[in-house]
């Protein structure tokens, strides 16, 4: 087998691989690239051209890949949103129970928790709405609905707002708790930052999922 024959064989294999790797919406472009190989007089040049075609197809494939295409990713995202929903619904439930005096008729509940006393009623109500929207988002993520992005971003923004409002209150003691944790270990802040980063990544993945596929 001569070097020329080997180069031609390699070129054909690369073109075939490029056609295979190319995403459906770019098949025509892959075909266009492959047709040009037949017009290149030099075998060496044709081989380089084929290698470039393979590179371009890989590039297009990577661009078209969405993490939400894989069901384990969607389930992991739904699980994380479920955790957020449980967290915020728990907060809303506890606060509303206290503020409205629900389920405490049989027990002389002492109304003396400073943070709950200063918390206005709209805060747990808003938290309740956010929690319900988060629960709805779980279904939407699993169904791969385009509305899922909004159903995650809106309650997430509300959660951040509620956290900021609560953080600004001296009765919450959040600032002191954070500073004590930070004094104990500088890595203590990693967990809240990681949580925030995971939620932002989920939002980005859902935003990417909303984008229509590239034009043919």
């Amino acid at each position, binding site marked *: 087998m001569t070097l020329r024959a080997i180069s031609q064989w390699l070129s054909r294999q690369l073109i075939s691989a490029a056609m295979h790797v190319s995403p459906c919406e*770019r098949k*025509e*472009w892959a*075909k*266009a*690239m492959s*047709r*040009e190989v*037949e*017009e*290149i007089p030099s075998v060496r040049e044709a081989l*380089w*051209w084929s*290698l*470039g*075609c*393979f*590179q*371009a197809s890989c*590039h*297009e494939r990577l661009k078209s890949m969405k993490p939400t295409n894989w069901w384990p990713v969607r389930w992991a995202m739904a699980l994380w949103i479920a955790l957020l929903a449980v967290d915020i619904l728990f907060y809303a439930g506890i606060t509303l129970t206290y503020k409205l005096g629900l389920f405490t008729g049989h027990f002389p509940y002492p109304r003396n928790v400073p943070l709950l006393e200063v918390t206005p009623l709209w805060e747990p109500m808003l938290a309740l709405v956010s929690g319900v929207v988060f629960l709805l988002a779980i279904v939407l993520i699993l169904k791969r609905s385009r509305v899922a992005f909004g159903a995650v971003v809106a309650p997430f923004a509300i959660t951040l707002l509620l956290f900021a409002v609560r953080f600004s209150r001296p009765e919450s003691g959040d600032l002191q708790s954070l500073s004590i944790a930070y004094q104990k270990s500088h890595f203590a802040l990693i967990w809240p930052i990681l949580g925030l980063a995971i939620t932002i990544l989920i939002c980005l993945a859902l935003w990417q999922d909303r984008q229509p596929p*590239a*034009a043919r």
Partner: protein
Amino acid sequence: MTLARKCSPQTLALLAALMDQPREWQHGYELSKATGLKSGTLYPILTRLSDQGFLDSRWKDAEQPGRPPRHVYRLTAKGLALAREPMKVLADSRSGLKPIKVGAQ
């Protein structure tokens, strides 16, 4: 910042090559020769320009019988406007001195 100024040097080179013969349909290999771009760089730029409506593409039958058709490209009106922009900027920057107002004292 204008759209043309955001273009990479490779995209500008391709736009310039397409501008050389704005009415002619050109093959990918021709464009590669004209710009010095490898196929791995050239085709992602061509697809992007086509997606953004700057480039027209179609299949053209080969001149020699028995050969498969080839994909050919040319700039759209929008693409021509985009390609003219950096050349205008270049011409402006080369003009150097500001024009002198006739009759100014």
